[in-house]
């Protein structure tokens, strides 16, 4: 059983390129089809995991592992998710530290770097679109981004500000707006 768990999450770790959310259908197929979780459990798990810090795929694997085989299960599933990328990246780090200054590699990465910036900008805009933020609501993330970018504030504080802001808004401002009947 442990071995099956491990291999399942190795597979999940291996076949998802480009990060967390690409993994979801794969995880669902593996975990639900094997009868480890039913569909509703998986949806609940997904909702809770989204609201946790850390690496999404690792969080899901820990949850599933814990549900099936307690702590040992969670460690095995987490290792399954982590190890493939760990070894692949380690191999690349060994290689890249030697070839970084190669003329060809320099040229290739001169081309890649601006594209990387574009590849980060696109999910930013699609996230803003998906959240359907109104103009007023966009002010806060905008301020957050500028504080990190220009004032060198740690993003950790921006995260905390978001949490505090959400609490203050929900329990304080929202009530007041309701009471005033606006």
């Amino acid at each position, binding site marked *: 059983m442990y071995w099956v768990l491990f291999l399942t999450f190795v597979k999940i770790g291996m076949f998802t*390129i480009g*990060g*967390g959310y690409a993994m979801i259908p794969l995880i669902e197929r593996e975990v639900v089809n094997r009868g480890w979780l039913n569909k509703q459990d998986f949806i*609940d798990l997904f*909702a*809770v995991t989204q*609201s*946790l*810090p*850390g*690496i*999404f*795929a*690792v969080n899901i694997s*820990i949850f599933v592992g*814990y549900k099936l085989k307690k702590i040992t299960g*969670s460690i095995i599933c987490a290792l399954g*998710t*982590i190890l*493939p*990328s*760990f070894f692949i*990246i*380690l191999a*690349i*780090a060994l290689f890249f*530290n030697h070839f970084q200054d190669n003329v060809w590699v320099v*040229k290739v*990465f001169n*081309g*890649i*770097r*601006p594209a990387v*910036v*574009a*590849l*980060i*900008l696109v*999910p*930013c805009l699609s*996230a*803003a679109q998906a*959240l359907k*933020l109104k103009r007023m609501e*966009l002010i*806060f*993330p*905008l301020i957050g*981004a500028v504080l*990190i*970018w220009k004032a060198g504030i740690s*993003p*950790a504080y*921006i*995260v905390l500000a*978001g*949490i*505090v802001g*959400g609490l203050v*808004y929900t329990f304080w401002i929202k009530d007041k707006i309701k009471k005033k009947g606006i």
Partner: protein
Amino acid sequence: MIYWQLWWVYLKIGIFGFGGGYAMLSLIQYEVVDKHQWLSLQEFTDVVAISQMTPGPIGINSATYIGYTVTGNVWGSIIATIAVCLPSFLLVLLISYFFAKFKNNKYVAAAFTGLRPMTVGLIAAAALLLMNNENFIDYKSVLIFLGAFFLTWKYKIHPILMICLSGILGLVLYW
């Protein structure tokens, strides 16, 4: 000493890394490039590119890569990777006990009304921080950026394909 710093930095990334890989980037960059200067901005951008092309989450990839580069040793990778996963472990185990309560908790829901829009700002900061003259060396860089943005936004070109294309373009343009 360096191992201890690495441990602490990645623990912090594991604790405050809300909103997925891209939102985590600005936090990783803040710690690794600005504060500790373990990597140059160019190297950091290269790590992001490599992460996008290889399997696995960017949080793990960056921990493994930076852990190795900073210490020149596999132990650096192991320490950073364990550190970034440890907070998740403790949290998930804790929440497993209170799963039903956590799911519909009004405080968690309230915190997220603020946190969710903020992730947009975190990702934007990651992009803005990388837009400087280390990554944009001349007008050709700007052209590559605009082309990559247009193709990805409009035609949903896969990131791996996009990175390969821009790498080839770099080879040709900087011949």
